[in-house]
């Protein structure tokens, strides 16, 4: 194995690990669930991809490379779906820091969540009760 590929693999592994670290940092530092899901998708997926590339260079043999390709593909396919479901539930449960929102185009269209203020516990009463029930 040549030195160049060693260096490339090393760089990929290091960068991927660093990105996964920032994803973890983001989970701690970001203010609400929706922002945390950003940290859980983008830097994390990119980090995993880079680690896979580094590992594929470092490990000899196509059998390993195919397996890593599969891991990368399923990471790309599944991370957005799980992030979508979690953030959707978080929105429905009103775990949203509305004071941080610059624009909110989702609330106004007869959506039931418009009657709730912001980052409240899930069983908080609606702001304008009486117009139908949320259930």
């Amino acid at each position, binding site marked *: 194995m040549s030195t160049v590929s060693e260096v490339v693999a090393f760089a990929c592994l290091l960068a991927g690990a660093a990105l996964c670290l920032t*994803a973890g940092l983001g989970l701690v530092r970001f203010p609400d669930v929706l922002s945390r899901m*950003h940290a859980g998708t983008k830097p994390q*997926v990119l980090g995993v991809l880079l680690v896979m590339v580094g590992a594929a260079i470092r490990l000899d043999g196509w059998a390993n490379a195919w397996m890593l390709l599969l891991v990368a593909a399923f990471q790309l396919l599944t991370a*957005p779906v799980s992030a979508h479901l979690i953030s959707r539930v978080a929105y429905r449960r009103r775990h949203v820091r509305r004071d941080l929102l*610059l*624009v909110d185009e989702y609330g106004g269209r007869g959506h039931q969540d418009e009657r709730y203020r912001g980052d409240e516990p899930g069983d908080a009463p609606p702001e304008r009760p009486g117009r139908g029930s949320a259930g």
Partner: protein
Amino acid sequence: MTVEPAATRLRHQVPLVAWLVLVWMLLWGTWSWANLLSGLLVALTVLTLLPLPHVVGGARVRPLPLLVFLGHFVVDLFASGAEVAWQAVRPGGVHRTAIVQVQLRADSDLILTMVAEATSLVPGSLVLDLDREQRVMTLHLLPVRDHDEVERKKAHVLVVERRLVQAFGSAADLAALDGHRRDEVPAS
């Protein structure tokens, strides 16, 4: 689900079987006839026990636009990964966020799914909701500094949609990109 002729049914199942066999082969990591046959057996068993509704209006790939999309996708993946990573480590904490709605134009389950997946990964956005009837996608945008940036990111989602339609869409989808459709519901 309507009952369809056996030939159409078979044609819709073939890509799924091929994909499952491919995954099986990749998992084993080596090519052999035994792997191929056992993969076929497993794929057919899975599809018989867990039948999926077939995807309407897919199975059309244009190689050159697909390459264009993939190239932009990889670049965007790095850019957005770096951007969110910077938001996570920078001393001042995150910028403001936004929830926006984007009116998409493609009318195909497959393309809408791909747009939603791609926008979740790429331009600083996360899909909150996708209204299939009206093709309205609700997104959460993470680093936004001002209203101009919100508009830029919304426009970028439409660019991603255009690239995907050019790679996978039917002629009707391509036409829908430019002209407004009759049944399009204006934002109210």
